[in-house]
């Protein structure tokens, strides 16, 4: 059995403290699991290797925060939106993308997908991953 009882979640967050954003790449089909888990959701293989992601990504959809979909803590993010983000390595996830105002959203809608890049963001007690809109967008 190739699966090991290991602390994937803690390692992911420890890596963020070291400035690295890590995923787990399937050794069989090459799919990237991000955020990292035990098994490949593309082919089912359990032999995954830790891989630092490049951070390059595309944003495919844009939803602005509103009364129901924001929290006081999120003010520290500045201007931001939610959306579907595709990593250069192929994995897709729902994520926060900073640098998007309502006015900017209007400009971006005709250009989707737009380029963004991953960033490490400090929350209360731990670091997490958000994305920043690329400056040329």
């Amino acid at each position, binding site marked *: 059995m190739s699966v090991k009882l290991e602390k994937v*979640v803690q390692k992911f967050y420890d890596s963020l403290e070291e400035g690295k954003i890590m995923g787990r790449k399937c050794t069989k089909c090459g799919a990237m699991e991000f*955020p990292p888990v035990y098994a490949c959701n593309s082919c089912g293989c359990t032999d995954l290797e830790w891989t630092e992601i490049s951070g390059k990504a595309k944003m*495919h*959809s*844009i*939803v*602005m*925060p*509103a*009364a*129901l*979909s*924001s929290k006081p803590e*999120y003010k520290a993010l500045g201007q931001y939106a*939610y*959306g*579907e983000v595709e990593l250069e390595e192929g994995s*897709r*996830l*729902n*994520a*926060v993308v900073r640098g998007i105002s309502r006015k900017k959203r209007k400009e971006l*809608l005709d250009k*989707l997908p737009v380029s963004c890049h991953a960033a490490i963001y400090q*929350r209360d007690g*731990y670091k*997490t*991953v*958000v994305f920043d809109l690329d400056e040329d967008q």
Partner: protein
Amino acid sequence: MVKLGKYARSVSIIGVGCTPFMYTVDNPETDGLTEGELFGYAALQAMEDAGVNPQDVDYYFHGEASPLNGSNYLTPNVQIANWFGMKGKGSIHHSEACCTGYLAIEQAVNAVASGKYNCVLSGCVEFGDSLAIGNHPYKREKMTMDKFLVTTAWLYDRNYTRSLMAGQELIYDDAAEWYKRTRGITDQEMDDTLNWMCINNRRNASVNPLAIERRTYEQLAKEAGFENVMDYMRSPHNPKMGDFLRLGGVELKCDGAAAVVVCATELVDKYMGNKSHKPIEVLGVGSAACEATTPHFEVRATEEAVRQVYELTGLSGEDLDLFFANDFIITSHLVSAEIAGYLPYGEGWKYICEGRTAYDGDRPINTNGGRTSFGHAHAASGLADLYEAVKQMRGECGERQVKKLPKTTMLRGYGGAQNVAAYIIRTIEEG
């Protein structure tokens, strides 16, 4: 890719029961009602409807989205069987949050289709608007929004989703963004569509005595001094709560219970005795689940659940006469009906804006009023929708009876960040 197999034997719905959906603590007549009383009422009504005695029922499934939070129970199924004459019978509790009542039918059908049991009850109860007070035997207190939001956060993955901040926030608007972008409609058209779904749901609820909110938006608009209902819907009386979502498109969380009795179709005559209504066969249940970091989780899971059940049954959206969607975020109503092909691709929003999806339209959806008007007693909502579907298919809905007696109905469940079920039921014709 999942391929559903045929059931080992056919299973049919023979009885349904449902309480009114209520704010129990707000009304002296209902304040003090308990889990056993709500579930017991729905269960006994379903058994009476089926023509069976509690002693005829072999096993029961119990659904409650949040028994620890709402009822101070860890094993809620054990505590209430004696309320409906099933003391000593086997049972199991399950929770898939707002999808519980939809997967409740699957539990019952599988138990009978396997051959293990011949007749099974499946019921759900929820106090979505109140909390048990300590060890007091019946007193409850109002569930504030702050308390509600504490536990709804627990619907989301603690390892990643809550940390990444997006998945749990996208539930309100992701489907609307997806629909608007992929169908190429304007912001105004999307807003109008969301508002018309509220209006249509409320029209349905206005003629449903079990619904929690029966005042039509036309009445509310008039009372607020608006001549045109759409002016009211676009006004601060119906404020934007999300990027697209307005207040009227959000669930009315409340208290209630519903239940269903199923049996092996080959044994219908034995169980139903002299009951005259036709049994309704469960043709199949498709299911999928996507945690909330998954982009467009509702769309993706609905597409998969619908694909499964259509592949199994050989049916398509054109074969459906009636459609239900768990629309606690009202956009679900549009998105799932189009994915299922009940409304044509890219045209569903027009059907809604023309009122064609209200109970008196040609493509009725959520004839009970849906989550924004019938109410949302979380686990119980799915079986409340099944109750309405069965009553419509029997022609027993009186004023809100749809024009053409439905023979085939799809119910699309959704909830729990996020489970999805899509199942099809069909009336068995005599002979």
